[in-house]
């Protein structure tokens, strides 16, 4: 499905790099907040996996919807979510994207098509299919994307959803970030074979394996899958192989967790998606990113400052929103 040989303009590479560097910088900032104890909610960082979020979301329109899981800071930012609202959410402020109700693991921004990320593994996969069904029923040109990890494949509902998505030819893209681990367990402790790209075959969902640290490869695969979905041809499954640099949760590196993580990490650090993109930019003539980096770092710092200024919830409002009281006025595209 890859359209080899296509040359993309420098701006394309720069924009992708900017997003990856933004995610990286934001995540490093979250890591510090966790280490310092300022962030108290469980944070699952995607450092090392930025190309998947940035590459896939580059192939999406604003009206397309995104669904995520516990490790979704990158998805949220790449789809257009606000940096300040993310930090504020992590810090438990009402200015957070979920009003401080969710913390790191519950992200939403309906105006940017981020319909929800929640931490029950695989939970949003059927939800994404439902959104895709809605688009199809309304004959809208939108598609839905479900992001999930390799661990999610072990949940039966993912298989149920694949069958339904193929049966109804839903405009849906399954994006599996295979970082080889689910928490502390290496894939080989959870499955007999390393073949996640085959998961949809039985259900007639075509699957592709992609180097998840190669921003262009991810984008190409996503673009084709999005096109297929939008054209009415049905769902596609993408296995994006990658690795998380930090531990499963929090800011530690989990060097001694898992079968052979220490050695693997050393190898994967060499595959840094951000550096690879920087090398490409350098080859294309954009050698000095210092200024660009500074701008992004400042934006991140400013967002954090603003987030810190957000108010904490009032105890007295703790029981608000158990139910939606009325239909909210349509305040967003969804």
């Amino acid at each position, binding site marked *: 499905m890859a359209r080899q040989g296509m040359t993309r303009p420098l701006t394309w590479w720069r924009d992708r790099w900017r997003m990856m560097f933004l995610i990286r910088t934001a995540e490093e900032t979250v890591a510090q907040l966790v280490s310092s104890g300022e962030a108290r909610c469980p944070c699952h960082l995607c450092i090392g996996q930025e190309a998947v979020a940035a590459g896939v979301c580059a192939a999406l329109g604003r009206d397309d919807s995104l669904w995520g899981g516990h490790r979704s800071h990158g998805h949220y930012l790449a789809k257009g979510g606000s940096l300040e609202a993310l930090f504020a959410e992590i810090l438990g402020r009402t200015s957070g994207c979920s*009003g401080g109700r969710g913390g790191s693991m519950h992200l939403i921004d309906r105006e940017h098509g981020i319909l929800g990320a929640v931490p029950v593994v695989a939970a949003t996969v059927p*939800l994404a299919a439902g959104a895709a*069904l809605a688009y199809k029923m309304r004959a809208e040109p939108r598609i839905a994307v479900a992001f999930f990890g390799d661990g999610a494949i072990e949940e039966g509902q993912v298989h149920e*959803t694949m069958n339904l998505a193929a049966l109804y030819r839903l405009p849906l893209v399954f994006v599996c970030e295979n970082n080889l681990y689910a928490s502390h367990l290496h894939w080989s402790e959870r499955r007999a074979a390393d073949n996640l790209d085959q998961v949809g075959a039985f259900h007639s969902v075509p699957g592709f394996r992609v180097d998840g640290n190669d921003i262009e490869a991810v984008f190409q695969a996503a673009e084709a899958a999005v096109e297929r979905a939008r054209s009415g041809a049905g769902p596609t499954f993408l296995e994006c192989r990658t690795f998380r640099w930090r531990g499963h949760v929090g800011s530690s590196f989990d060097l001694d967790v898992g079968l052979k993580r220490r050695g693997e990490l050393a190898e994967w650090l060499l595959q840094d998606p951000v550096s690879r993109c920087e090398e490409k930019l350098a080859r294309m003539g954009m050698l000095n990113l210092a200024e660009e980096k500074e701008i992004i770092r400042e934006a991140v710092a400013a967002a954090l400052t603003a987030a810190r200024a957000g108010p904490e919830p009032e105890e007295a409002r703790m029981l608000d929103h158990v139910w939606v009281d009325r239909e909210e006025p349509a305040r967003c595209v969804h």
Partner: protein
Amino acid sequence: MRTLTYVAAIREAHAQLLERDARVFVIGQGLSSPWYAGGSLDHLDRDFGCGRLLDSPVSENAVTGMAIGAALAGMRPIVFHPRMDFLLLAMDPIVNQAANWSYLFAGGAGVPVVIRAVINRGGEQGAQHSQALHALFMHIPGLKVVMPSTPADAKGLLIAALEDPNPVLYIDDRWLYGHTGPVSESMTATPIGKAAVRRAGHDVTLIGISSMAAEALEAAQDLAEEGIDAEVIDLRSLKPWDRETVLQSVRKTGAAVIADPGWRTAGAAAEIAATISEEAFHSLRAPTVRITLPDAPAPASRVEERAYYPGSGAIACGARRAVEISGRQTRHTQGAQYLQGATA
């Protein structure tokens, strides 16, 4: 007003909702089958097309999750489960997702989905095909739960459920499908959270849930013949439930019998009994009586089934006990005293 059966009222509500609002669709297992929906969805596929009646594979979890996702993307889905027992395979989407969604995101997104589940018991179907699990859902914040007992409410509560911006579990009971009653031809919602006083009375309050509301009404008739004047409340909504109507009645009568088609321990009746004893403590003249299933799975054999499901007789029995302990002067006791006086 014209008369319809309960099942026809459900079907009509579906048809009118599908007709009125292009966002409405139905998805679930068995929609177009001759068995599963018991006539409640007959020919809707013919009338509205398979594009709006998706008779799905047997994938309760994902199908329910899809309905939730579609609701979040602007549709108004009704997801159908031909037996309540199968909801146990869809607890994550219902409880972890739909119920929490509004709260989690501080009201940023409601889930306007109707989850329809049928109590489909009896007929020697046994433990896995007979359950009335409403109490599980009554416990969950963020859900609404309705259980109509009359044809009018079967229609009115489905309309209300669909119009509600929250996830609503709509539970109908196959044993009620043949019941008849007046049903408005127009689309009139029965308000969620409002009980109906089906019969006014002074001596004891009978609070019925779903099919047990109909049984309670029957019991009240029998009791009336004995001179006991029972007030009958059809709860209709289980979450939120109408505390005011119930408490007002019990404060008047001083005694309550709760008739619930579910199990006893930690069931719906327990909540109502606990609330009565908290809020009407000083009016209560007798212990509240719970008429429920025994704490046992459903048996299959007809002999055991007969013993397993309580009806109007058990409710009347409970009411007599409550009235007796309450020491209330009913026409019944007055008559007895008069006779005693006469023979003294």
